[in-house]
């Protein structure tokens, strides 16, 4: 039976109002947001046996953008990313509006009818075995 794919919406967008109504004028707002989601109990995959309930929280370095500094926080269960949230966000309507919503899914391995393949830069030697080579051969 096909198991429902656990889709977890990391509601970074849900934090937008927090930034938007931060009363500080100019500069940056600094919110210490809790991780937006906690890992579902079925999240641990082979290779990451230790998925504690809280997970490991890592703060990213502060990155300067055109609109001001941005800092993200990533929560791990083992090597799995369970949440990404913004610690620092420029106090700028354009960027707050543009804060993305991220969706967590399980990795699928599929075959499909396609026109081209994107992947890490393949070497000329590796090309023969690649899906792209098969597409090129089929269409030639």
């Amino acid at each position, binding site marked *: 039976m096909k198991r429902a794919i656990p889709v977890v919406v990391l509601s970074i967008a849900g934090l937008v109002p927090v930034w938007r109504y931060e009363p500080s004028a100019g500069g940056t707002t600094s919110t210490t947001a809790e991780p937006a989601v906690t890992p579902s109990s079925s999240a641990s995959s082979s290779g990451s046996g230790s998925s504690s309930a809280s997970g490991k929280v890592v703060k990213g370095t502060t990155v300067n953008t055109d609109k001001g500094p941005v800092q*993200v926080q990533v929560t791990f269960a083992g090597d799995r*990313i369970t949440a*990404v949230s913004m610690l620092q966000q420029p106090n700028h309507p354009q960027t707050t509006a543009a804060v993305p919503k991220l969706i967590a899914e399980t*990795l699928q391995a599929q075959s499909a009818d396609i*026109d081209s*393949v*994107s992947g890490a830069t393949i070497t000329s030697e590796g090309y023969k*075995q690649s*899906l792209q080579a098969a597409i090129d051969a089929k269409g030639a």
Partner: protein
Amino acid sequence: MRRVEHVMGFPVSLRVDDEGVSEEAADAVFAWLREVDSRFSPFRADSEVSRHGRGELRRDQLSADLAEVLDLCEHYRVATGGAFDAWPPGRGFDPCAVVKGWSVQRAADLLRAAGAGRFVLNAGGDVVASGGPWRVGVRHPEQADKLCTVAELTDGAVATSARYERGDHIVDGRTGRPATGLLSMTVVAASLTEADSVATAAFALGAEGVAWAAARPGCEVFAVDAAGGVLRTEGFPVASRSRAA
């Protein structure tokens, strides 16, 4: 018309569906990419890039093309807090990550100028699509003959950074060490210049690169983390399971 040639060390596949586009237009694409290889390869001692890297060419002596590439490198270095750096610690000048996307995007622009409206140009896994719908599969990071998703594009670009093909070649410029936080990072954007640079820069940033790339205007992201979990933006153009009739 279909062509495959090996340029810059990787295969370049071109498919043009327009009837009236001449073979010369395709010739011009590959001629441009060979020119880029000779001028911008850090692996050729006499290239403009190598000469700049050795300090033989000052900034004001560079071609307009290389100056444009350097501006792009600087843009992404600042935007990533130094994780993406064409001058990584302990290594020579290497703007490859920007040159690839920039040059293949320009090749696509040449095709458009020659009258091509419906084509797919795939340069070693980086794709520019025009006049779609086109279905572009994203290689599964652990199974070379499988896909982890399919993106549907009308006009746009897809680039993927990962280490399953060439090992730990992407360095976190903040530490000088290989980036290992992600298995693969795929970015869809309007131009390949942006998609390829953002994919590489986000891969260098590691796990925090997912939100960073997703926050860039016009970028849609499909990332596989080190444990094999997917994080993608809501707007990533996931294609339907099968091709529309």
